[in-house]
């Protein structure tokens, strides 16, 4: 139960973070999340894309169809300026949150 809520709460940030350094497409994002979290966090189609679309609607990421030679076109998402701002805020929020948790419950996110 907690996991679900935590996942949902952090999902936005995960995505914003992943497209921070370069544009990525949906499948890539899902795979990265799985790999970098060592399988703890998994996003399937059903959970990923509504999220992407919501972020896009809020203007935090922007999607673009890119066509490469010899391949089908793919939709790449990159971070917008507004998205960067939100990402920074959220990072800050989470840092403070975990610091508080640590102080109270003794977890070490380090």
């Amino acid at each position, binding site marked *: 139960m907690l996991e679900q809520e935590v996942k949902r709460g952090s999902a936005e940030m995960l995505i914003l973070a992943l497209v921070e350094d370069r544009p990525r497409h*949906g499948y890539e994002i899902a795979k990265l999340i799985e790999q970098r979290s060592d399988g703890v966090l998994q996003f399937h189609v059903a959970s990923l894309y509504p999220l992407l679309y919501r972020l896009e609607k809020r203007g935090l990421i922007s999607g673009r169809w890119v066509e490469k030679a010899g391949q089908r076109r793919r939709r790449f998402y990159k971070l917008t300026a507004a998205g960067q701002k939100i990402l920074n805020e959220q990072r800050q929020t989470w840092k403070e949150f975990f610091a508080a948790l640590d102080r109270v419950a003794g977890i070490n996110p380090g």
Partner: protein
Amino acid sequence: MPDWSDEIRRRISVLDLAPVREAEIVEELAQHAEDRYQELLAERVPEAEAARTVLAELVDDRFMRDLRRVEPAVVKEPKTLFIHMLVQDVRYGMRTLRKQPAFTCVVVLTLALSIGVNTAIFSVVNAVLLRPLPFPQSDQLVTVSMANPQLGGDHMPLSVADFLDWRAQNQVFQDLAAYTDNWFNLTGNREPERLKGVWVTAGFFSTLQAKPLLGRTFAAGEDAANADPIIVLSERTWRQSFGSDPQIVGKAITINGRSRTVIGVMPHSFNFPAADERSLPGEVNLWILYPLTPPTRRGPYYLRAIARLKPDTSLQQAQSELTNIAFRIRQDNPLTNGESTFVSKSLKDAIVGDVGRLLFVLFGGVTFVLLIASLNVANLSLSRAASRGSEIAIRTALGAGRQRIMRQLLTESLLLGIAGAIGGVLLGWWGISLLRTMGSNDLPRLDEVSIDARVLAFTALLSLVSGLLFGLIPAWQASRTGLSEYLRKAPQGRSGGPAWRRTRKLLVVAEVALSIVLLAGAGLMLNSFLRLKRVSPGFAPDKILTTEISLPGARYKEPAQINAFYEQLIDRVRNLPGVEAAGIGMSLPPNLLAMSDNFTIEGAPPGKSDPSSPVVIVSSGYFEALGIPILAGRNFAETDRADKPRVVIINESFAHRYFPNESPIGKRMKTGGPERPKNPWMEIVGVVGDVKYGGLDTAAEPAYYEHYLQDDWSDTYVVVRSSSEPRLLANDLRQTVWSLDKDLPVANVHTMEDLLSDSVARPRFRTFVFLVLGALAIVLAVTGIYGVISYLVSQRTREIGIRVALGAQRRSVVSLIIRQGMSLALVGAMIGLVAAFGLTRLMKGLLYGVEATDPLTFASITILLLLVSLAACWIPALRAAKVDPLVALRDQ
């Protein structure tokens, strides 16, 4: 490789997104799915499992809810929304149907067959009954014929005297004409040809207001006795016999030995009078002006007449004038015109005749076929809809209203209906060409039958109706399924509950009932036809060869010339090897009657004369060759020549009617009726057996025979009885004729068996059509029964398993299933029989020798249907018997 786009699109279509956005999402998700799939394959996951995994991860309820929150549904104008949804439904429907090719093919084929027969028959109804005749203002055209209530005839031909009197006294017709058809010999061209032609009076073409292709047609007054010999050709004759000669107009050609001038050519579209049962078969090749010499007596009677009403004159007014004219003629000629009067009928009615009844019955028949087919398809659709329960349940859960789902299912049904209609039009077109080749003697105006706009509209309507018919029931049933209700059911129950079962049973019962009605019709036609074929023609028809000879008037002017030719011909033919007997006659049984004429019996009080009775001029060998028995007196002899006392032979019916209590031998009669007192008396020297000249389905009528040497006639049939296969004599016969006259065409060499067969060509054709419909009905009904019984068996698998496990014999399982199936068939049969009882009365005029409610026929077809139904139940029953109780009980 699975089609992710399809699957995704199908699932999110319910959200009604803007098309562009939807396409984008589908594309993106499909790529993700593909990438995931490849990833799993790379991990050596089996394909099927990989696909399942991907599908499971694809789209679920939460996705839809989340997406709904993000992506707005497109709010459109109600009009465009409707079109948008319609387009969606159509695309979705086509995809779903493509995925189930077996179902789609069976349904489309079933519909195509039933719509096809409907299209074919309706095209005929359209051309024959609905469309006006191809003449300007054709509703003004009428036929005029003679009726004599005493003799029971009402389409009897007129005589020249009748026509001239009518023409002189006419006030109500703006134009009138008379005609009669005949065979003509064309010589002096490439080779001697025998052509069908029509003698016409001058007003013929102007009455019909028919325009020629080339030249002109006959003008009023050109048919006087000393008329120029002029002639009009048909387009086909002009092209085929004269090589489309551009100088044809004004050219002289030789017809029957006389030179005639071609004044015009009629276009291919003009073919009046079209061949019917009272005319020579085939197309008209030429129209030849008939010089009307003033007659010296009332008879003989051989002319048919048409006329055009003056504008604003009704048929009733015309009829009353004709009745008055007839009355005046009767007053002037009491002895010959007895009770006869003139009758007129609209030309269209005359041409269409009683075909209207046949077409009506046929139309009913094909409607039944369509109903049965629709019921069959409804049954198939029900089982298909039942198996789509999961899809429908999910869609309902996702917010698709019941109406939406119904509309979707109905759209699929309509798509099937349209596909069936397209197939039906193609089949109908093929059916029409089949009808044209087979039914040319039976159906009038057959050359006008085509698939026109009205027929296409009719077909479209049919596909709509049938699509709704078989789509409505499953759609309604299916849309009632809710998701939770669906999930609650056991797997078996998922292909339908008790409501489904009841509906399907009802459908099958209805199918069987309709089939019985159709089969009853087919059975009655078949029975009637077989009886007709078994009718005795009055003589021995085997081993007889016949041919037609028509001596051209130019070279055979004198009776002596005609007699000499035939005498020699008969003599030479008789001496051919293999010939047992040979003769000539101007008419042939069963239906080739050339002429009727008046007669008077010596001593009979005036007024007891028949205006007309078949008279046949024959040689003595005629009776022998045909096998007509001589019942009293003697045959003609070669001594009965022109300079000897005149003799006549009568048939049995004549003797019974006019000499009921005495022997007719030695009595005297004369032809030409009482107005020809100078005609010689003829002594009755013999009585022969009856043969039919009016067709096998008529009663033999009184007829009398004259000897050819005493009364010449230039057109005859040669009749030859062979000791073996008659066809072998054909060549010898031709050579014999040509040995006497090399320019004489020898036409229509047929065996008598062929002629008998041709005479029943009409009923044969009708029976054939009915049998086709009956066969279709049986096939459809039986597949329907098979389908339902199989389905019911699958529903009861568990129960059967239990029974077997508890010790029931395989045999009792089989009988259980068969009882279930046969009870449906029996109920359907009983309902059908009751309906058939009422409906087959409509066929009364089409049947010969069989009651419309003939119990033997009804019993036979019922037994047939029940037997076939039994076979249809057998296979599922055997399958049921093989049910392994362990498997059945395990299957949850």
